[in-house]
């Protein structure tokens, strides 16, 4: 990583990253992709999010579904760990709770591939600063 | 300095800023009780962790009560030291402390001198409403000090002494919550710690958690054994403090009464460690002159400064902390340990008895002496040169237990030949005294001239580290003095770093020297007591007809009769020692 030499270079970098991030979610953008976020804080990992993370990474690629799988911190839904958030391009993010590899498989096959509505969705009840 | 005006219990106090409420209250005649707080005024020793919470007071506008010992005055403050809220809190806190304290006052070594006991009396506690589990710990007995920390109230005074003043680091708080207590690291025995047995922890402990190992029973048994000749020696600082145990004013000299009491106790010969102190000066002074002369001649191997070696706590300290410098201190034994072989190898032979049938008892202001006399190098075929060392406090108890009315005793004189001493040896008991005594003799031996002015006032006082230059007839001799091991550490570090300018240094482990020793009557934080003891010793010195060690006729006779010359072969064998590296083995489990 290059050293940021001024507020200007920081701002430029931020804009670049913002644009890249925005592109990911835009429906018809050629750079858009499915985004999967797996909660990997201590609580998530302790309830089994690591196998889910590995499963998502491996299986999405095996099944030829282009997706960006990343780890994130706690989403706050401790009672439903492991939780994952799936964002389909152009759509709002959906959070699933109590995800194990079996559930993850169902999310890939039914929610991501077929766009079906499936159980286990946690309502998003917050706004972010 | 800025002055602060505040109101305490309706009285207006005017004190300098940064004064504690405790001291401010004293200025208007209000004495707030304290327990963990401890101060030796003018000696730079203070303990105010704010832990016991007995001194809490109400400060108007403040949510909770404030510890008076640790809260500074502020302009316009309104303080209440004895309203119902404060009284209830103070009493409840004391009741809590008592609820975790063994009620063993009847048999406790500290009974009568216990600050917790007197606090309970002062506050009129007649029952303990909050009963419950008491914290229990392993009892620990070392050669000199007993730790019975069931009685520890976490005042942390010992910890302050051991760490801040002495920089020994043997004691610290361990564990937490209800089981928190002051102990050596890993709760090992004191014997496994770098403890020097200086006994300063014992001298400040408010309760019976830290006390000396009591050898008076062994002494009683020896006195009762007709086959034994029992000889006693008394250290200089004892005579300046023993009277306190019998209600006499601090600073009262009780030399004659002490001798009379010892004789009544049944000792066959009552001798004086002062005699051995004169002997120490002969040996140590000669060693100093020898090293100095060789140094002045350009001998590169000679080590200066020379350090005194008569304090056993100090010897333990450098063996633990500066073992690589153990060639620097004088090899002369301490007076106690010079007395032993002279008694058993010289006097016993004179009497025609086997050394094993002679018991030598020492009366010391010190607890480290108990350890010193047990050292292997001070034994012959397992027979110690000094059999038992009693503290000033133990002697007082022995006298009280033997139906002796101390104050009405006549004044007696020491026996001869080992009871004759000079003024020089008397001042061994206070900081600066040993080096002053050494100067009196070294001056005359070095210059060959008579010393007209015997008092070296520049070497006296209570400052932590002192230095003075003494004129040896044109040769300036730089003298350093430290009392308290933390101060000694500073001087030693200077020597190690090549920064020391001194030719000779006197070091005493205890603040004030032996008069402030760990075996002395409890001063309860009153530094005036220590000062009065010092002035008593200087008074005794001034009144002595002979005030230079090398003029003691019995010393001269001893050399002529038995030893030959100072630092000669016989002296080397009987009166000198060597030191050990004790840095390893600390906190190591066997």
């Amino acid at each position, binding site marked *: *990583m*290059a*050293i*940021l*030499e*001024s*507020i200007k270079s*920081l*701002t430029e*970098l*931020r804009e670049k*990253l*913002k644009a890249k*991030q925005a592109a990911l979610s835009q429906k018809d953008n050629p750079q858009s992709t499915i985004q999967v*976020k797996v*909660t990997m*804080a*201590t609580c998530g*990992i302790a309830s089994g999010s690591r196998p889910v993370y590995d499963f998502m990474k491996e299986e999405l690629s095996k099944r030829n579904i282009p997706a960006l799988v*990343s*780890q*994130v*911190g*706690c*989403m*706050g839904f*401790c*009672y439903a760990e492991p939780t994952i958030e799936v964002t389909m391009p152009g759509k709002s993010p959906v959070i699933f709770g109590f995800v194990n590899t079996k559930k993850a498989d169902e999310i890939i096959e039914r929610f991501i591939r077929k766009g079906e509505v499936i159980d286990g969705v946690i309502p998003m*009840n*917050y*706004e*972010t*600063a | 300095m800025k002055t602060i005006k505040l109101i305490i219990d309706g009285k207006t106090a005017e004190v300098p800023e940064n004064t504690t409420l405790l001291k401010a209250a004293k200025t208007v005649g209000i004495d707030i009780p304290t327990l963990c707080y401890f101060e030796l005024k003018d000696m730079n020793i203070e303990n105010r*962790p*704010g*832990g016991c*919470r007995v001194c809490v007071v109400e400060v108007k506008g403040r949510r*909770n*009560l404030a*510890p008076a010992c640790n*809260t*500074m005055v502020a302009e316009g403050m309104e303080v209440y030291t004895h309203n119902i*809220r404060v009284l*209830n*809190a103070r009493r*409840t*806190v004391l009741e*809590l*402390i008592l*609820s*975790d304290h063994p009620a063993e006052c009847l048999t406790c070594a500290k009974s009568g001198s216990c600050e917790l006991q007197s606090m309970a009396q002062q506050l009129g506690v007649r029952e303990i409403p*909050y009963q*419950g*589990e008491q914290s229990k710990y392993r009892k620990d007995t070392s050669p000199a000090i007993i730790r019975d920390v069931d009685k520890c109230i*976490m005042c942390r005074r010992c910890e302050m002494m051991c760490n801040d003043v002495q920089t020994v680091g043997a004691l610290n*708080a361990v564990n*937490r*919550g*209800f089981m*928190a207590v002051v102990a050596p690291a890993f709760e090992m025995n004191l014997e496994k710690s770098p403890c020097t047995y200086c006994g300063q922890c014992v001298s400040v402990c408010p309760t019976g958690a830290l006390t000396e190992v009591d050898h008076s029973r062994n002494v009683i048994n020896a006195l009762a054994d007709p086959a034994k000749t029992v000889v006693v020696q008394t250290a200089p600082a004892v005579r300046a403090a023993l009277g306190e145990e019998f209600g006499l004013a601090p600073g009262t000299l009780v030399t004659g009464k002490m001798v009379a009491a010892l004789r009544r106790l049944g000792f066959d010969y009552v001798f004086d460690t002062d005699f051995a102190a004169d002997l120490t000066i002969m040996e140590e002074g000669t060693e100093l002159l020898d090293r100095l002369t060789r140094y002045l001649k350009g001998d590169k191997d000679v080590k200066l400064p020379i350090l005194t070696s008569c304090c056993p706590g100090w010897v333990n300290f450098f063996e633990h902390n500066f073992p690589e410098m153990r060639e620097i201190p004088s090899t002369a034994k301490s007076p106690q340990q010079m007395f032993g072989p002279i008694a058993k190898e010289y006097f016993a032979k004179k009497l025609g008895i086997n050394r094993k049938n002679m018991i030598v008892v020492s009366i010391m202001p010190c607890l480290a002496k108990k350890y010193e006399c047990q050292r292997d190098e001070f034994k012959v075929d397992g027979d110690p040169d000094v059999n038992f060392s009693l503290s000033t406090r133990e002697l007082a108890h022995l006298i009280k237990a033997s139906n002796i009315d101390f104050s009405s005793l006549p004044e007696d004189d020491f026996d001869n030949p080992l009871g004759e001493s000079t003024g020089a040896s008397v001042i061994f008991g206070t900081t600066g005294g040993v080096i002053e005594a050494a100067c009196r003799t070294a001056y005359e031996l070095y210059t060959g001239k008579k010393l007209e002015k015997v008092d070296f006032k520049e070497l006296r006082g209570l400052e932590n580290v002192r230095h003075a230059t003494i004129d040896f007839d044109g040769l300036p001799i730089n003298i350093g003095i430290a009392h308290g091991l933390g101060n000694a550490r500073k001087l030693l570090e200077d020597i190690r770093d090549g920064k020391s300018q001194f030719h000779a240094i006197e070091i005493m482990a205890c603040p004030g020297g032996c008069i402030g020793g760990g075996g002395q009557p409890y001063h309860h934080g009153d530094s005036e007591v220590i000062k009065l003891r010092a002035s008593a010793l200087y008074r005794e010195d001034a009144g002595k007809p002979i005030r230079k060690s090398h003029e003691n006729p019995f010393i001269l006779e001893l050399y002529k009769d038995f030893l030959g010359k100072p630092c000669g072969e016989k002296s080397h064998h009987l009166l000198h020692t060597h030191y050990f590296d004790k840095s390893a083995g600390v906190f190591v489990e066997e």
Partner: protein
Amino acid sequence: MARQIRIALRNCGVIDPERIEDYISRDGYMALATVLTELSPEAVIEILKKSGLRGRGGGGFPAGLKWEITRKVQADQKYVVCNADEGDPGAFMDRSILEGDPHAVLEAMTINGYCTGASKGLIYIRAEYPLAVERLKTAMKQSREMGLLGNNILQTGFNFDIDIRYGAGAFVCGEETALIHSMEGLRGEPTVKPPFPSVEGYLKKPTNVNNVETFANVPVIINKGWEWFASIGTEKSKGTKVFALAGKINNVGLVEVPMGTTLREVIYEIGGGIQGGKEFKAAQTGGPSGGCLTKKHLDTPIDYDNLIAAGSMMGSGGLIVMDEDDCMVAIAKFYLGFTVEESCGKCSPCRIGNKRLFELLEKITQGNGTMEDIDKLRNLSTVIKDTSLCGLGQSSPNPVLSTIENFIGEYHEHVKDKKCRSKVCKSMMQYLVVPEKCIGCTLCARNCPVNAISGERKQVHLIDQEKCIKCGACMEKCKFNAIIIN
């Protein structure tokens, strides 16, 4: 429907905490850049003061004021300390922030360094938080590589670097003076304040100690302006507060709500109500230092001052919900047990007093209490609060006082009727055989681990109360519901 507003948690669960780019893409380090290039330290402190941000570690001291005090003390060296020694039972918001958004804390500490004149920051974190430590280390490495931490930050000439110090998990080391002693390698115990750390702290130098959540708020306040922040919350408590919801609540988890949200909204709307549809009994806020809020407090807006008025406190934000199955005497005993374990032992009221409180509560829960014991609890609690050296002892009796205040009836039942209505205090329970239902199958007798049940086959069995250890095995095994608890 009450909504959460996530300020401190803004990036948690959103960004990959191990990628600085993710943080930057969400305006990360913009606050630092603005501060370093456009604002004077005094101006930043002014923004913070106007924002009304108060310390989130429990005390609620105005953050801007603390920064100002530290700034005004003259010294050759100052320190910024992040208190990440989260120790309240059931509180884990600091861990979540450090694991989910470590850069936010680094950025805020650097801003603090600029404002106070410190060039060195220290994060005091529990060694039990290994993932948080790892993520902090990764974040520190990344920000140093990008010139956002270390020497000459953003080429402005400002130097600031951060080190990590580990705590061994002592609760009392969350108290700032104890924390500082622990960092100095000394025994982790508090000393009397003043001097406050802002004046004389780490290595006797002025030290600004703030909690993780407090720091996490700072960059947003700079970026969005104090007016925005001050528009959220109540008159004296601005912004949001993160709560760790735990206990008998459906949606156990981390929530961040504006100050002034009511307990009812937090529990029923955000937390999804009580488990099993049972009745709400109390909520403990402030952990072992706090007190319990009851039904009458359900509609009280939660902020620093209201909680104190209700006999509790904000604390670090643990919120433990209790239902009708919880015995309030046992709850008080639970918290006292924690305090007894965690007291450092320095001052006598906390060391011995809390132990005695615990013993009295034990006596009462065992059915041996007297009315006098309740008086003793009251007096002792008051004295411990009034005389203890640090915040631990000054607040440890709160659970006792607040349960006595709100649930005196339960205490009386334990003492007078020897009864625990929640059937929690085992000593007061009796397992009894209902003769009408017992068919004498002997199953209970065969399963009793202490042979306390006697009775011939096909005859009514009897439980020897002297022998019974109240394990409940008999009741569990009985197929005829013939065993009941009295």
